[in-house]
């Protein structure tokens, strides 16, 4: 018997690999998105600090913008530096 595949649809799952389940700022799940976004994924990415704490990018940017000097990680109060790994 011979089959001819006319079309197929690929399905995949994904998840963020973070050391926590929730964003420490909005407290929403990392696998969801920040409260200002509708869809999780590349449009609402996670970012890491050098201190290893992780947040929704939109959440940490809001916090950093509110702190003109002395930008600290909300979790550990160390100076915030993006970890561009």
């Amino acid at each position: 018997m011979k089959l001819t595949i006319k079309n197929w649809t690929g399905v995949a799952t994904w998840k963020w690999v973070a050391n926590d389940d929730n964003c420490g700022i909005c407290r929403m799940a990392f696998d969801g998105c920040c409260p200002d976004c509708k869809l999780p994924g590349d449009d609402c990415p996670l970012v890491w600090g050098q201190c290893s704490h992780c947040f929704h990018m939109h959440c940490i940017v809001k916090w950093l913008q509110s702190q003109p000097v002395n930008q600290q990680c909300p979790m550990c109060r160390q100076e915030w530096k993006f970890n561009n790994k």
Partner: protein
Amino acid sequence: MASASTKDSKIAVNYWDPLRDTDSEVLSATASTRIRRDLMTIFKDPPPGLFVVGDESDIRYVHAIIVGVMDTPYEGGFFYFILKCPSDYPIVPPKVKFMTTDAGRVRFNPNLYKNGKVCLSILGTWTGPAWSPAQQISTVLLSIQSLMNEKPYFNEPGYEKERWPGDVERYNEILRHETLRVAVCGMLENECHLIIPEQLKEIMETTFLQFYDLYMETSKNKIDLDGKSYTDPFGAGAVVTFEYAKILERLETIRGNLAKKHAIPVDLPLTDGEGSDEKDDNDE
């Protein structure tokens, strides 16, 4: 009142006061979901002696009762706080007002002013570690609870040692008396006409009945102080005269009224409207 300098407008003086806050901005999506999550965290796993309800009409407001911790001069007292979360919460901390002040007459702690200001670094009203968006409503309330400790005298900068021998104990005697007079009797009688949410009133009533023997025992043990006067070291000259005999009378009256109220047979059918302002919450 000290005259305000030209720089300080009246609003700036009361920047901490949630009830004078004119912010009418719409909450951001982050803020409203965060407030709900903060409340759910407390409902799911309530920290001891901490009770909160959200405001029925405005999600930005949260009402909280802190019950004074055992073995502190505040033990068994009901300390009522109103919190208001700003539109950009949790980037910015909530504003908090302490309501149990006997209408602005009692300073219950070096950090809890009689005008209701709460001096706490995470609220931006004190020096020290500032607010961080990783904080939440429960951590604010737990921080306030930790101010109300066994020896609050030492909370005041410059009072790391007793100024006069016996100061710590005298201050605790003042607080113990004012807790029973204002934060127990005064709150249950609601003599200051505070608008306290019903759920919190019920919590105060059931907790009062549980603690009643303790209140009575403390008052009886301290009755020898009656007639004496102590000056509140942080009260700008305020003098407290002990009146435990009066407190004992008030405690008994409150208990009598609550017993009547709670002794109403709960299975009484509510066929007519008379005397049925108990409505719900009466399931056994």
